[in-house]
Each structure stands twice: as C-alpha cells, then as structure tokens.
C-alpha cells in the first residue's frame, strides 16, 4: 500500500517544493555520446536523495534517445557482465554514484542532436528530476 502511495506522495512533494528543495539532486553529470559506429552512449552522475524517505527510481527517459536504462558493469572471476537494474533505491539523505566501470546509464538509439541531453528521472509516473547537460565525445 505504502509502495503504491509513494509515487503520489513524491509527486505532491515535488509540486510543493521549490527548486532549492528538490527531492532528488544530481551532480558530477557526464554524458558520453555514442562512439562512432555505435548507437549506445552512457551517462555518469551522482544522485542524492534530499528527502527523509527512500526514493525508488523506476524509469529514466530522454527526448534525445529512444530508451535509457540503468546498468551495472560487474567484474566477476575475470568476466565483465552488464546487469540491467530495473529499479534503483536511494535511501534517505544518501547518494548513489554512477561511474565508469560500475553503475551507468545506457543511452540507446539516439533520435536527434546530442549536443545537449535531457534526462528525466521517475518514481513510477512521478517526475522527480530533470537535468540538461552538454554531452562530450
């Protein structure tokens, strides 16, 4: 029940908050364009939950890409695996880092110019955070 209510509560919280008190904060954002010959870019950043309760990211979208997915590169017994993360829990007042060789956002199939990339973070249908960042080669 609480889980079902959380998106609505967060949406209300977002609506009630000014920009300065946004529930989710992004820092150290780096957008890497798809390398030549490929259709997949990556994004790295730190996400901080500024609220007093856990936030669960369930979807990330971008107008510049057909799909965005959370993945984690895992090195196990010398083998590199990419594991898709369906959701991401961020505990109250905690920061989760997406960095090279670890968690990352896969930016798949570009659909437009990529000089600037917008990323939208959702908890179910509630939009928690929108960031715009210049991308790098």
């Amino acid at each position, binding site marked *: 029940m609480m889980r079902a209510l959380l998106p609505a509560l967060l949406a209300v919280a977002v609506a009630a908050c000014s920009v300065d008190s946004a529930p989710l904060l992004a820092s150290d954002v780096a957008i*890497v364009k*798809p*390398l*030549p*010959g*490929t*259709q*997949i*870019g*990556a994004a790295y950043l730190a996400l901080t939950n500024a609220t007093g309760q856990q936030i669960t990211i369930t979807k990330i979208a971008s107008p510049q890409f057909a*799909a965005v997915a959370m*993945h984690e*590169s895992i*090195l196990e017994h*010398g*083998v*590199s*695996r*990419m594991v*898709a993360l369906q959701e991401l829990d961020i505990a109250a007042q905690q920061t989760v880092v997406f960095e*090279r*060789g670890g968690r*990352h956002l*896969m*930016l798949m199939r570009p659909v437009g110019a990529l000089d600037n990339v917008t990323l939208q973070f959702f908890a179910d249908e509630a939009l928690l955070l929108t960031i715009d960042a210049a991308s790098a*080669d």
Partner: protein
Amino acid sequence: MGLKSIFIAIVAVFAIGMGAWLSYQLAVPPAVPRTATVLPATAGLPDFALSDQHGNRISRDAFVGRWSLVFFGFTHCPDICPLTLQVLANARQKLGDAGHIPLPQIVLVSVDPERDTPEILGEYLDYFGNDILGLSGNIEELRKLTSALGIFFEKSFTDDGDYSMNHSAVVLVFNPRAEFHALFSAPHVVDNFIHDLPLIMSGS
C-alpha cells in the same frame, strides 16, 4: 705523501666504491612486473582467419614481429570496453612520450561478430587513435582463438529482446613470436601498463 701512499689511497677508494655498488646490487631486488602475470611457459597462437576493420584477411601472422596487447570486447558495450581501449591507448601514448620503442600494437577482437562488421569496427576504433587492429568475422574462427586462449564470451539477452555480451576482461600480451606471453587482469589502470610493459617486453 709518497706515490705508494697515493696508489694505496686510490685502490682503497675504488675498493670501497665497488663494495658499495655490489651491496646495492645485491640488496635491491630486480624490477619485476607489478600487476601483470608473466606465463611460466608461453603458448603459441592457433591458426585462425578473421577480418580486420578494412576487410583484410588476418591470421596469426599479424602478431608476428611485434608485441601486441589483445582485448576481447564489442562495440555495443558502452562502459568497460571503451574504458579499456582508452586505458590501452593512453598507456601506449605515454610509453611513446617516454621514448619506449618499440610500442605494442593494440588489438580488439570482437566477441560480437554478428553486429561488429568491419565497417562498424573501423568507425569505432578510429576514435581511439591509429594503430589499433580490430578483428571480427566467422564465429567458428573466433572460437578457435578464444578456446586456445581461455577467453570466455556469451550472449546475454535483455528484456527488450536485445542482447549484451558477457566476456573475459583480461588483456593478453603476445610476444613478437605470436606467443601468449603475459596477461593483465581487470580492472585496468594506465600506470600498471606503463610500469609493467617495458619489463615484460625486455624479458624481465
């Protein structure tokens, strides 16, 4: 002071110097690779036939005559593979800047030949600089290589029907006789290559 005294003093200084030098040589262990593993016995490459990014047929002969750093990956990998290629390219650049000659060639062997055509490999590898050899081609030919070298790879399907590749993340070092000579285990760091490669290539 007579000539004899001067001679004795010179001999004494020389002896002390030699003693100090010998003590230093005995006390300081020879430089050895820090992270790389040098194989106790090298292993020859099997015969194989793949294509490079220009469409040329490539066999084990491409490894003869120079040192090679070989990584198995794929172009649709957004994280580990470009990171590794960047580490290798940066390490080679820094070794070149420091005057180390000859420099090893970097080789990416695609474990995803289905998607990694020579054209795509070519576009992708140009991003990382010159003198990077990309290999792709028939899966049976690829398996000849991976089986002989103990390289693992497999498809991993995603919910949307797409797929990724799980693969060994090791960097293999081949000597100019096209023999598997040493390896670097992941995670890969530029400084480890800069420290270890000259030692490996000089036979330490």
